[in-house]
């Protein structure tokens, strides 16, 4: 039990997928202009990433094994893309409200490298099925947390008197860098 808790804390704060592992930067920069959009994207990613971790564990463990390890990346991509597509259709049908919220962000998840990175890290660290699920969920929550925090900051940056050469993406990059440095403060939290 303690193990799972540590995985959660570790992935959300200490080894944050965005700030420590520098993965998933495209949606981090792209979907952080508005807080609402960032929350939607965070929710969608959490949902997909948890499923993808579990599914890719199953594919890797039962289908590929060690002899077909070189097919890992390829098959993971296919699995993730299918899950995203399936999720989109499923949500569209069952919950129009949720679809309105997540709608246009769902397809973007396919291209989120964090979603591929986490299943690959799962394999690297030899997680079992439950651990993989926790690792995926924790990583996604970490992503969502950082994304929403960053979006809230960027909304304020809109109104700030930023020197002209730094306006827009430039100051956002600086902010992201500062966030990354700040997150190093968590590094002593879990050994």
């Amino acid at each position, binding site marked *: 039990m303690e193990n799972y808790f540590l995985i959660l804390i570790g992935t959300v704060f200490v080894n944050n997928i965005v700030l420590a592992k520098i993965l998933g930067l495209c949606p981090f920069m792209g979907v952080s202009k508005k807080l609402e959009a960032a929350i939607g994207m965070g929710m969608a990613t959490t949902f997909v990433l948890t499923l993808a971790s579990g599914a890719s564990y199953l594919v890797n463990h039962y289908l590929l094994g060690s002899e077909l390890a070189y097919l890992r990346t390829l098959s993971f991509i296919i699995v993730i893309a299918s899950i995203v597509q399936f999720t989109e259709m499923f949500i569209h049908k069952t919950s129009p409200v949720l679809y309105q919220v997540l709608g246009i962000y769902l397809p973007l998840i396919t291209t989120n490298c964090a979603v591929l990175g986490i299943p690959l890290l799962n394999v690297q660290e030899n997680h079992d099925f439950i651990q993989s699920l926790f690792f995926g969920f924790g990583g996604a929550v970490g992503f969502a947390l950082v994304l929403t925090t960053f979006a809230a900051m960027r*909304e*304020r940056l*809109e*109104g700030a*008197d930023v020197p002209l050469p730094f306006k827009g993406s430039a100051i956002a990059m600086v902010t992201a860098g500062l966030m990354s440095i700040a997150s190093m403060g968590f590094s002593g939290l879990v050994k």
Partner: protein
Amino acid sequence: MRTLHPFHGGIHPPEHKSQSTRQGIAAAPLPARLVVPLRQHNGNPARPVVAVGDHVLKGQMIGAPEGFISAAVHAPASGRVMAIEMQPIPHPSGLPDVSVVLEPDGEERWIERQAIDYRAIDPADLRNRLRDAGVVGLGGAVFPSHIKLDASGLETLVINAAECEPYITCDDMLMRERAAEVVQGIAIMQHVMAAREVLIGIEDNKPEAISAMQAACQGSGFEVVTVPTLYPSGSAKQLIKLLTGKEVPSGALAPQVGVQCFNVATAYTIHRAVNHGEPVISRIVTLTGNMEEPRNYEVLIGTPVGELVKVAKPRADTSGYLMGGPMMGLPLTDPGVPVVKATNCIIATSAELFPPPPRAMPCIRCTRCAQACPADLQPQELFWFAKAKNFAKAQEYQLFDCIECGCCNYVCPSHIPLVQFYRFAKSEIHAQERDRKASERARERHEFREFRLEREKQEKAAKHAAKAAQAAASPDGGSGDEAAAKKAAIQAAIDRAKAKKAAVTPQNVDDLPPEAQAKIDEIEERRTHARESAGQAAAVQKSDEGQGAS
């Protein structure tokens, strides 16, 4: 001693009140011209009910209330209606508005005045009478009082006599000199609203007014509550909090917490309207600031400010005039603007009394504004979002709870004109809301039109089918003839229209300068051309219809 419930924030600007209270209220002289705007209250402007050239009596209704949120407007003096036209009014835009211009005849003949026995008539009827007497809130918001009085079984009636803004002393003087009449007005309000408790809040910098009111309230059961001098304790929501401890929720009205608040001058006008049958045609105005003889005057509504201020002798270095107090007042751009029901004070400004504000520095987020804000808002955040035109966020931070009191401006160490940003954001949001409603309406109308066209098409098709069936049944079928007859009739109509148009002979065309003649020729040519193409278009269309019918 009643426990007070202080509101958050507030400031202590220098009072400047003593100079205008040295002498009692005097009547201002009758001006040569009165300009009475028809929009002197919140809501719909009044509808003019007199014509140019009419002779009106003092107190005669010249503008009737239009709709529910509206109030009547009356002639302040007997005289003749010279014009009903656009005239400058006191408004931040400087735009003119429809006003009735009167020339007083100096006779001051009143209309027939009739006192109302308010205990004998139905409260609804009394409210209508007040609307017709033009009674509105005289504290500055000028909201029609009859609407606010429509709250029966009230817990607390709060009478706002705090008069917290610097310089203004009109309510102070009113209470000193006419306390008994004010109390009679309050009694009417209490009767209409069946209020259980009446609290009169007066700031402790007006000891004479307090003792006068206390003496007048003897035996009435009304309680005069002395409140500490703190701007803006005269704001309705803040005074309610101060006296009753109840906070009016955001977006709600005072009666929802069982309280209603009226200005003390409104109570006086209600007394005049009910017990004397006199509509609101004058009010007490403080003339102060850079003047030799600052004093309170009873001024007829419609008196041009430029003419009025002469009685108080403005000093030579007067640079302009403010309507209202220095915190929330409105700089007057045109000396021709009239005194309206909202005018409680006119301050002559000079570079010495009102030096231009120091140049602004950037916001350093010191949050002094948040400490001073009586509405408990975060002015620095509102400023941030209003400046970035992020109106949705500004609304999230309760922009519309801002009372524009100016406390944040006053304390801002960077001298940023914060209130201007809030006003800008508020009016932008209102404009967006209007646009949204307009486009919503346009969409509905467009969709209905599409539906209507579709329906007409179907109806036509059904009719044709029926006709075709009929024609098939009767072998000789006269539809061809019918169409031809219709076409001929249409052609005849077009010819008639053409003839009629050609028959219009121009007037005043003798000895025109050559360029004017050339212009006319050009127009004439265009017109002939237009007529021809019109004929063609009409013919084409009619032949289309003819074909459709056959």
